[in-house]
């Protein structure tokens, strides 16, 4: 990837963060930590890796995204607004009566959301079914599945991983948001899962571990998932919960937190300054 493209992806990630924070700030609080941690992944997926058409969100041949950690809805909505699936104005309807942007992602409400998730673990099986369905229908497309590290507490995740491997779903790419924290604290203290990559390998995945908050590393890893073969792909994203906003990164309990007017102004000003810097670089 050249410098220009890398800068463009960094800009997109920052724009997604601003959009996600705009949605959460309009409500006053929300799932800031886990939304911010996947913004770089969303930027690379929508900006580079996934085949999508915001004008035709139900296009059957599109690549699909299942955000199984459905509480990261604001992050996803940020990406969809940046991509033009709906207007920026809609972001401030988050969780308000009659909104198309509910706290957890819903395929029946939001253009560009490919699957309904929220009850943790369930999105993993749904993504397997979608990837299998596309393969059986002969569609040339892939399913990308974002799973939380805390979410891996759920047994259904491992049922789904075994299934993906058994059915050789090489059109499935699992992006594991290893951000080290869940609602009640550190993943390693609540229900330690050990080495995610070793587990995924043992389950039969073609697995990579990269810095998931680095768009260039992540883009390179995703390039390697295009090869087909007979294994599903996994990328363990060594992420920081709250990535991209230092104050949030440094907040230990940052799963769901308030966003005051001052914080919103400060955080988005910081992100805008970074965008200006990368625009100059590009």
């Amino acid at each position, binding site marked *: 990837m050249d410098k220009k493209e890398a800068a463009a992806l960094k800009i997109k990630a920052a724009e997604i963060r601003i959009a996600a924070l705009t949605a959460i700030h309009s409500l006053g609080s929300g799932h800031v930590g886990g939304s911010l941690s996947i913004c770089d992944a969303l930027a690379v997926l929508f900006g580079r890796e996934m085949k999508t058409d915001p004008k035709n969100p139900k296009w*059957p041949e599109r690549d699909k995204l299942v955000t199984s950690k459905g509480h990261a809805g604001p992050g996803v909505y940020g990406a969809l607004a940046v991509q033009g699936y709906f207007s920026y104005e809609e972001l401030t309807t988050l969780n308000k009566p009659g909104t198309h942007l509910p706290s957890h992602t*819903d*395929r*029946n409400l939001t253009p560009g959301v*490919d*699957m*309904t998730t*929220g*009850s943790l*673990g*369930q*999105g*993993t*099986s*749904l*993504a*397997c*079914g*979608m*990837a*299998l*369905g*596309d393969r*059986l*229908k002969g569609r040339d497309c892939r399913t990308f599945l974002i799973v939380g590290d805390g979410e891996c507490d759920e*047994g*259904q995740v491992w*049922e*789904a991983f*075994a*299934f993906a491997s*058994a*059915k050789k779903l090489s059109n499935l790419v699992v992006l594991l948001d290893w951000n080290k924290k869940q609602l009640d604290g550190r993943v390693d203290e609540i229900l330690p899962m050990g080495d995610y990559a070793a587990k995924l390998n043992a389950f039969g995945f073609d697995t990579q571990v990269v810095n998931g908050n680095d768009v260039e590393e992540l883009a390179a890893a995703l390039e390697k998932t295009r090869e087909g073969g007979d294994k599903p792909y996994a990328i363990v994203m060594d992420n920081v919960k709250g990535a991209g906003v230092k104050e949030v990164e440094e907040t230990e309990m940052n799963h769901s937190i308030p966003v005051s007017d001052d914080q919103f102004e400060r955080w988005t000003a910081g992100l805008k300054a970074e965008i200006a810097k990368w625009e100059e670089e590009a």
Partner: protein
Amino acid sequence: MKIIYDGSMDPTQAKSLLGSLIPRLAAEDPDFIYLDADLMSCIGTLKWGKANPDRAVECGIAEANMVGVACGLAASGFKPLLHTFGPFASRRVFDQVFLSGAYAKNDITVLGTDPGVTAALNGGTHMPFEDVALYRTIPTAIIFDPTDMVQLEDVLRQSKDLPGVKYIRVGRKDLAKVYEPGTHFTVGKAVVVREGKDCTVVASGIMLHEAMKAAKMLAEEGIEIEVIDPVTIKPIDKKTVIASVKKTGCLVAAENHNKNGGLYDALLEVLAENCPVPAGQVAVEDEFGEVGPQSYLQKRFGLTAEHIAEKVKAVAARK
């Protein structure tokens, strides 16, 4: 609609019907897809399934994942039918059916075999007396408890094209012959299998046969019961039930299910709001299943023609 009930059992067992019907549905409809959780052998689909892995998805003993995969396939344009035993098709996967299925509007058909006492020798761990109660609380779900093989074939065939979550509970063995082959049933439309003036008996699944036996016994005493097959427990056919009890003045429900949350409760909701009449129930008391032959279990849990006849007399006396 022609009723051919004469007390005889259909020589075809449900297992054998399912084993031939599921491959036929796959042959007829390229979008039909079948999933199982290591129980293909139990409904006679294993040989075909192994030869057709793209039409029969073996999921292993992982029911929650199977439901999710089925829902993902539905989102991809398929019409999934998934099978496992009743307790695993209801209790074990309730949240997956509720959210990944109904809430997310992924249309699936769930076949739960061996409901209630038909689990027989598999015993209490495999004996769902609460599956109907669970599915009744899922918005938009449709619940079938087929009373004969003709109905089983028809509702399984039409379920694949119906929207929402469909739940079919059926034993793998015998059912009485009730309907002429080729009979078509409608969701939410009950069938009056036998007319009578003294008491309405609504009986689902294996209990229809018991109700018809009770009708014969009671007729000898001059009591004529009206026997109704609800076809769907949800939605329940209010119109047919109301018309019947307006004539008979009382109602008995007979179901292979816990007394709480099943057919009787669905009927009581109709009666209470429209035409309160004396009513009673032949169902499993609030207790767990146990192991034994089906005939023993029907006696043990009070699911026999004799129990229905007794209940009819008790309820009719309160008119």
